[in-house]
């Protein structure tokens, strides 16, 4: 048993075994991280998800779960789907501005070459 319980086992009020699936990713000095993930996904679901992943990918999986859980707590209706929506909107608007600006450049280039042509005449 780990001499110091991980944040997950402390939260769940249980012993922290040596092979605890949570302990590498939920250190005892950051209890909010597990609280956040547990609130949205539940300990059982997180445990299942981690156990289905290769060990070398679990740290990244935990970080992404924490991120999504945080987004959901901040925005209970849209979660991080809302963020995706905002990014897609921003992409659409930027593409529109870019197209307009490139059209203006084309017009300016044509006028510029016409001016140069008329100077030679």
């Amino acid at each position, binding site marked *: 048993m780990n001499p110091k319980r991980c944040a997950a086992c402390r939260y769940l009020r249980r012993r922290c075994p040596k092979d605890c699936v949570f302990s590498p990713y939920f250190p005892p000095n950051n209890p909010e991280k597990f609280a956040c993930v547990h609130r949205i996904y539940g300990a059982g679901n997180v445990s299942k998800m981690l156990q289905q992943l290769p060990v070398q990918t679990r740290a990244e999986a935990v970080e992404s779960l924490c991120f999504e859980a945080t987004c959901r707590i901040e925005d209970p209706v849209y979660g991080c789907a809302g963020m995706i929506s*905002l990014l897609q909107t921003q992409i659409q608007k930027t593409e529109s501005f*870019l197209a307009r600006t490139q059209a*203006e450049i084309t017009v300016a280039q044509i006028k510029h070459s016409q001016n140069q042509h008329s100077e030679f005449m």
Partner: protein
Amino acid sequence: MPGCIFAPYFPPEEPHKFANVHKIFGASNVTKLLNELLPHQREDAVNSLAYEAEARVRDPVYGCIGSISYFQRQVHRLQKELDAANADLVHYGLSTSTPGNVVDLVFQPQPFPPQPLNPVYRLSGASPVMTQQPRGTGGSYGTFLPWNNGHDQQGGNM
């Protein structure tokens, strides 16, 4: 069953929708989440949960974050192209006729894992093209709800 909180949002002809949500979030967690929302917010909440759950099923490591990262890179690339195009316009002696007020969505710190606990919106012009949606109130995102755009919009993995 009468009074089932799920019934309006999980039609029988879409069994995978609930299956994914149940697999990732669990039925009791979803019930709790929905009970904390006003009735008119629940449909969008369920759809966003279903979207996230499906993303997580497809990509068990990164879930939705893969899409966010992909779109953030696209935004940065497009902004650079727009800056270059505006510089070209200035070269022709023209002022930039585009409002130049594309809102940057900047997450601090960068890069992945992005931790936008407090996403910062940086305005580069007079007035925002889009206003920051009120957080936590289920403000409308108009037509750009990711689950309306099909899964092609999910973008690549990191």
